[in-house]
């Protein structure tokens, strides 16, 4: 075979495959709107093109198959047949047949041994059925003219009637009958053509290998650019400097542009789901409506490839196991058509994909029983498992909740494979389900390979990128202020950020880099969020924000939790991307989160006896020491004594536009005469469910770690007990008790909320 022939074959394959993908979508769309002529016409043209080319290339089997399909399609287009689900199914199987032949052609340019005569026969059946009366169908030209108000429905119908005996085009007939002006027909015809051309003009096909090559070339260009910039910086030739600056800008833009070509919208993967859902729903006799949100969410090409199979599996599962039969749904008071929602969006530097159905949901109890009967977990373990943990069992190998194995799911390729595949690209899968209401599967694919905005900081002359999503704010302290405002609590540095204690982490220290020597002139604090905890990262310098392309680290560096990947900076040098969560864990910021979360649950604060927790120690009288869990402290505030007011027999202050009731732990508020020289009131603010109360203390002493088990219980009201904290006996304040004693209704709203 000559080279020219090979090129023709390849062109034919690429074009046909692309068109076939479009066909799947068109067919499914047609089912909801069986008379959409524009679509039918498109399908007809595609099949017609394949037929024509296959005849030319001598692919006789393909020609025969597409010929039958074309005949049926042409009758559909002309309104002689009305599209039914049966016809759609046969046509879709014809499309599948074409695909299989094309696959064989791609391998060795032969059509393969498969026999498609059954499909041809099935298609021919529809040709033999008597011609349906020319349906309501005005040609699309007629439709356009109608919508423009150029003619009336009666005139179109009359023209259609005449066309049956008259071979001329409808436009000609309409003009001849004087129903419409020639100009209007010409306008309508050009509109028709524009609609057809618009899609194909806006994009072209590019070989992926070529893109990768371009990417590498741009990399080389960046390096060369850097060298030229260096040379330019040394020389004195101003015109050369100007030219090299321009080269610099263009290269950067080119680099960004080429990087973006690798991104693909997730819609490319989703486009085959309408067909998948339709086929399975039909096979299971279910009614399913598929909705997709966020098709335009960009993913890297490689990730798009990697998530294709896991997503298909989940979608199949949702329809097969999730959504119930129409009768069952109606009996449960749900609409008979089930809804499957695919949602994709960028969040937190990650791509989130959610697949949710409104089906039967997953019963955690059933999962536990199944897992026990399959020997995946022991009965004892099953009893201890929470519902949430139980749902996670569906990702265990060898687990299938399907009562019976159908040809759709339950074929051994389980959710464990989904999990493995997603984790392979560094993602996570999570399942949430409410029995009777549906199931949501959430896939998070981390920033790997996606372009993200990041803050570039430097520490020890190295640059690091911090994903912008973790970034809350930047704080810059200069001179005297830098030295004074950092307080140390037992060696742990903290900064008071608007009254909140912000634990500080030194990047140099955490990464084992040498500390910067000399006096600190400036202190840069990058306030970050890890989980729901804030911390301040102290860095040597803050550069700028940049869009960076995240590249994964090699296997030999995967274990380093402090880094999420690496990126190539504008100057061609590599910079590491900090993993904020990993960094926080390394610096032990996160360990407190647990306590905080428990405290948020209300009762949790007192029950968490085994773990250490941070306690705020404060003085209440000259030598009385009290402590409360740091997690219960919302803020530390200072109030001027002359701001003190009274309301309903209580001391209050105005605070952030609200009235903050005060509880006096020292017993000095009543006796003290307001004098200007008095130190301000030290107040610990406690908040719950939007209500706050201020605890007036004499002074804040320290924050220490306490093991709650070393506590002596106390019967004294307002005091939980006492413990030795930092070498001194300290009373533990019963925060809830004290507040309740002052305001019995403080927690009422909370429990109602």
């Amino acid at each position: 075979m000559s080279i020219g022939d090979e090129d023709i074959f390849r062109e034919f394959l690429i074009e046909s495959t692309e068109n076939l993908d479009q066909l799947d979508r068109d067919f499914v769309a047609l089912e909801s709107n069986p008379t959409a002529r524009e679509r039918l016409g498109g399908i007809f043209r595609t099949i017609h093109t394949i037929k024509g080319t296959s005849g030319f290339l001598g692919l006789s089997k393909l020609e025969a198959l597409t010929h039958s399909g074309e005949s049926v399609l042409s009758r559909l287009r002309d309104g002689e047949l009305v599209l039914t689900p049966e016809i759609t199914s046969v046509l879709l199987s014809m499309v599948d047949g074409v695909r299989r032949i094309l696959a064989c052609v791609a391998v060795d340019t032969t059509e393969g041994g498969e026999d498609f005569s059954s499909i041809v026969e099935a298609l021919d059946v529809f040709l033999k059925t008597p011609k349906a009366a020319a349906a309501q169908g005005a040609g699309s030209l007629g439709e356009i003219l109608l919508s423009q108000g150029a003619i009336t429905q009666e005139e179109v119908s009359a023209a259609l009637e005449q066309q049956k005996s008259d071979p001329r085009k409808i436009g000609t007939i309409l003009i001849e009958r004087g129903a419409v002006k020639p100009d209007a027909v010409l306008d309508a015809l050009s509109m028709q053509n524009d609609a057809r051309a618009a899609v194909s003009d806006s994009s072209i096909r590019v070989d992926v290998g070529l893109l990768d090559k371009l990417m590498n070339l741009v990399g080389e260009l960046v390096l060369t650019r850097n060298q030229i910039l260096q040379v330019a910086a040394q020389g004195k030739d101003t015109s050369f400097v100007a030219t090299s600056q321009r080269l610099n800008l263009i290269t950067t833009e080119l680099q960004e542009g080429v990087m973006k070509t690798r991104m693909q919208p997730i819609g490319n993967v989703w486009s085959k789901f309408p067909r998948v859902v339709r086929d399975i729903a039909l096979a299971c006799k279910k009614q399913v409506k598929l909705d997709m949100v966020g098709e335009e969410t960009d993913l890297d090409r490689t990730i798009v490839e990697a998530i294709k199979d896991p997503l298909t599996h989940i979608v199949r599962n949702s329809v097969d196991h999730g959504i119930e039969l129409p009768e069952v749904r109606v009996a449960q008071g749900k609409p008979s058509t089930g809804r499957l929602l695919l949602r994709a969006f960028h969040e937190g530097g990650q791509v989130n994909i959610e697949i949710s159905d409104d089906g039967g949901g997953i019963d955690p109890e059933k999962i536990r029983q199944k897992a026990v009967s399959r020997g995946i977990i022991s009965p004892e373990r099953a009893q201890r498992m929470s519902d949430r943990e139980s749902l996670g069992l569906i990702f265990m190998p060898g687990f299938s909740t399907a009562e019976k194995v159908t040809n759709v799911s339950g074929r051994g390729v389980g959710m464990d494979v989904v999990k493995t595949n997603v984790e392979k690209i560094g993602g996570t899968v999570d399942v949430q389900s409410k029995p009777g209401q549906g199931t949501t599967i959430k896939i998070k694919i981390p920033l790997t390979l996606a372009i993200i905005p990041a803050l570039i900081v430097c520490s020890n002359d190295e640059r690091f990128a911090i994903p912008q999503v973790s970034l809350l704010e930047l704080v810059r302290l200069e001179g005297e202020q830098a030295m004074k405002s950092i307080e140390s609590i037992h060696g742990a540095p903290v900064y008071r950020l608007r009254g909140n204690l912000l634990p500080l982490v030194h990047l140099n220290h955490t990464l084992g880099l040498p500390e910067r020597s000399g006096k600190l002139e400036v202190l840069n604090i990058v306030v970050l969020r890890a989980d729901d905890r804030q911390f301040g990262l102290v860095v040597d310098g803050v550069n700028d924000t940049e869009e960076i392309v995240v590249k994964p680290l090699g296997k030999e560096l995967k274990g380093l939790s402090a880094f999420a990947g690496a990126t190539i900076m504008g100057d061609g040098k590599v910079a590491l991307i900090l993993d904020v969560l990993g960094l926080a864990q390394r610096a032990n910021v996160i360990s407190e989160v647990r306590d905080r979360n428990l405290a948020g649950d209300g009762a949790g604060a007192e029950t968490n006896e085994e773990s250490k927790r941070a306690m705020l120690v404060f003085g209440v009288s000259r030598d009385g020491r009290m402590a409360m869990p740091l997690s219960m402290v919302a803020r530390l505030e200072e109030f001027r004594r002359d701001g003190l007011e009274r309301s309903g027999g209580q001391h209050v202050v105005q605070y952030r536009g609200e009235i903050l009731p005060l509880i006096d732990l020292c017993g000095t508020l009543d006796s003290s005469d307001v004098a200007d020289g008095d130190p301000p009131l030290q107040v610990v603010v406690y908040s719950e469910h939007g209500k706050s109360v201020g605890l007036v203390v004499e002074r804040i002493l320290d924050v220490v770690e306490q093991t709650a088990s070393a506590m002596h219980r106390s019967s004294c009201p307002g005091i939980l007990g006492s413990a030795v904290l930092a070498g001194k006996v300290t009373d533990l304040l019963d925060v809830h008790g004290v507040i309740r004693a002052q305001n019995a209704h403080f927690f009422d709203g909370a429990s109602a909320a």
Partner: protein
Amino acid sequence: MTDTAQFCTFFVADRFFGVDVTRVQEVIRYQEMTRVPLASPVIRGLINLRGQIVTALDMRARLGLASLSAGRLPMNVVVRTDDGAVSLLVDEIGDVVEVADDCREDPPETMSAEARELISGIYKLKGQLLLVLDPERAIAEAAVRRGTEN
């Protein structure tokens, strides 16, 4: 006629090493590197190889030898692995040599343990010995070492 094998050769502390030539992607001069804090000392840094980020392993450190004297810059031997390219930092590059299979022997028991685990075989050449380095093992061991240090 006996079968032969081709090796890309290089020197580390005057020792003569070779890597299967089909595994070598390219050999480039010293590149600026970005250090990776917290990583094992074997991992010298990351280099930008035309847009691809490649980890550079210090072969001297890997073999338990003293580091290169100040002022001398190592060369990069970029080898292909299943997980992408990895660069081996070596002192100097030698020729590509073709050697007959029948002059190969297993490494002797008396070699240092660090070196022996990386070397898959020894070829007896005229006047010197060629130590064949197994790149997979060199990389894998580097990862393991880091794991134990943490």
